[in-house]
């Protein structure tokens, strides 16, 4: 990490690939992902960690990237919504969201799918209450959550990865 007008170099693994960026250490991981790496899947909904639209996985843990200073992600493995599909094949959860109507306007969907991915990795067979609890940090204004929860249950029944 070298200083360059207060900037530093941050090395991460993003969606399985090495990524180096030069950024102010306190810049939000969300902005670095979107602006420097062109990964615009993670969205800003509230900028204060309430809505979960910016959620990504950092070393396997769900995190709101609007609250993470980029330096904190140095050396970490970050997975965003863009890292789930294998080429043109959707991940099981993504397909389930399409099939069950889990995405309406779609703005919460990337964060919601990252939260659901994290949930299913920890609890491969969650009961409905566990799904509702597990996704309660991600706000959706369109769906009333029912079809999102059904998508997660559907993906769980198929196994997390195809």
């Amino acid at each position, binding site marked *: 990490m070298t200083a360059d007008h207060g900037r530093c170099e941050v090395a991460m693994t993003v969606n399985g690939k090495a990524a180096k960026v030069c950024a102010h250490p306190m810049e939000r991981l969300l902005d670095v992902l979107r602006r420097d790496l062109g990964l615009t899947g993670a969205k800003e909904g509230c900028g204060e960690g*309430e809505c979960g639209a910016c959620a990504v996985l950092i070393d396997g843990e769900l995190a709101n990237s609007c609250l993470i200073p980029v330096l904190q992600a140095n050396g970490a493995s970050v997975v965003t919504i863009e890292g789930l599909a294998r080429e043109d094949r959707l991940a099981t959860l993504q397909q389930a969201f399409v099939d069950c109507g889990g995405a309406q306007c779609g703005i919460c969907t990337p964060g919601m799918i990252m939260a659901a991915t994290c949930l299913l990795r920890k609890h491969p067979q969650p009961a409905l209450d566990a799904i509702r609890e597990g996704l309660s940090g991600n706000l959706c204004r369109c769906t009333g*959550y029912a079809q999102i929860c059904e998508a997660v249950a559907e993906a769980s029944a198929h196994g997390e990865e195809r």
Partner: protein
Amino acid sequence: MQAESIIGTSVPRKEGRDKVTGRARYIDDISLPGMLYGATVRSSVPRGKIKNITFDPGVPWNEFVVVSAKDIPGTNCIALISDDQPCLADGLVNHPEEPILLLAHPNPHILPKAVAAIRIEYDPLPSLFTIEESESQAEVIWGTDNTFKRFLIEKGDVDQVWAAADYIVEGEYTTGAQEQLYIENNGVIASFDRERGVTLWGSLQCPYYVHKALMKLCHLPEDKVRVVQMETGGAFGGKEEYPSMIAGHAALLAMKSGKPVKIVYDRMEDMAATTKRHPSRTRHRTAVSRDGKILGGEVEFVIDGGAYATLSAVVLSRGTIHAAGPYFWPSIRVRARAVATNAPPHGAFRGFGAPQTLFAMERHMDRIAAILGISPVEIRRRNFLKPGQTTATGQTIREPIDMGRLLERALSLANYSEKKDSLRRDHQSATRRQGIGIATFLHGAGFTGSGERYLASVVGIEGCADGRVRVLVSSTEFGQGTKTVLSQIAAETLGLDYSDVEVAQPDTETVPNSGPTVASRTVMVVGKLVHSAASGIRETLIAAGLLSEGYSRDAFLKACAAYVAAHGEFKSWARYEAPPGIFWDDEKYRGEAYAAYAWAVYIAQVTVDLSTYSVSVDDFVALQEVGRVLHPVLARGQIVGGVAQGIGFALYEKVVWQNGRMQNSQMTNYIMPTSADLPVIRVYFEELGNVHGAFGAKGIGELPMDGPAPAVVNAIADALGTGFDSIPLLPEDIFSAVTAGGLDTPPASQGAR
């Protein structure tokens, strides 16, 4: 041609794949070369004269583009209905957060500091913050009497009914402001060059509203303004009229700087400065016979429109017409007013006035039932509108609706009668009470009265070189499924596969004006036009001898491709024509208010925790008649999502005002339901057959916003034996009422005799 098979099936959402992979492009995902970022300097006072503006010399202002009202090339207003709202305040401000100056800079991080470095001094003027203060006319802040619009509906001679009434029941009901809380904030990008004029990309519902507003503001002809809708992350009415404002701001900065300018609000700015649902007050005075028949009544409905007229007249109109609910009134008088206050203008939000008056009507029905000593079920059953009867506006119900049957089915689905007894008997304790409540209601689909005739929407279908077709509409997708359902309709009409149809991106340069995407009109009105335009394509191919009846999909693709090869462009248009025999009097507010209504019965079961005073909704049955369900998954998604917003309206979502400014403009302190807060919402459809929309569909989008609040509050009243007539109803409100009045007192019976 294949048998009908696409309509009624849950085909995959057209843009679903892009949305689940993060590839869908919303406005904030777009960056243009050389783009600047814009910010808005807003008023800090509710009302006053701007005395002086000073720019802190510590900021290098030469790096900034600064726009004031003086830079506006055209008229300083947001063109909508009455052009009273300035785009930038010029000498006078009428509400907190009113835009005064605009700034643009290449570095977005510098902007907040620059905004803070501009000091504006005001000569404050007296201001009004509530309906009552506005009515008092202690100060006149708008027009001559603080009133944007009045409506009067009169049916029969209500003055004659009071003498004959066994009971006269009065009640007053209020609803609060509600934030749309789409997860994607308002945002746009504007660019300008002398040749092409202004191009605007944005998160918006109504491209042609923005088009009209920019022409007037920027003083540009029709062909020098282009508006393109990007993927839109939720709207709910919150992106109906407001985008014209933010679009105007970005366009002014782009015209002055010659560079593309992006303005995307952060959450606090979006919540504090943009529109919300109109706060309301509804008073009912109803004459009822001993056997529970409504004889007549008076309704007074008032909404707080905020500082400028915007859409308040139209919201008021829909609320006024829905004030009578799904009931037969031999006589009724509805007086309605939209009044001005010094708050940011209130605006469109799903339901558009109807959730306010239907909350009042449905709470009032429970009050009437309590006073008469009959059940909430019975009072409704005895007063439902039936085919052949007339509504408050004198519209004869021609649909084969049977609300009694809908009610019976919903009661049975909710196991109502058993629960009504057992909840009272077995589930009440010192720490919790349970109850069950009903709301029965209707929602008119499409624009009110002559609205659709004035809109005269146009839809196009384009045959493409590969034989497939494109739907050309300005109707926008923002989650409801516009693209999917319109594609289903076109495919079904033409005997094509769903994948043979695509919907063009709404872009005023390439799509006709199919009207705004509002008012539960897209499937019913625009869908029908898609059907007509698609039929035109088929007929042209048949007339050209390229296709014969009973054709296969492959034959169509070949014929269409051959036509395009021979003639170049191949487009078919359809324009809205009012059905014959439709009468509407704009002056007297009499006639066919809506081409069709959706009808519903919702039943909520709740638990009130008497240690925390919080309410949980334990079961929710939503039964509705919306005509033919074209896409079961999307239709259910509309209902569940609407019910969730309705439960939020009733129990969670409270805008805290201070001097016209929202104090809780964050997701941290303005609370909407999470996945852990909602019950399983059980959705059922009844299909009675209807001839209005494409393949028999009516409107669906707004209906589910109307019923949840009264059903939930009626259930709370059932649980506690205490009526509540104001929403939002937060734990502290229940606490105050219960500690003040105790439990198990009968509902207040003002005016009973």
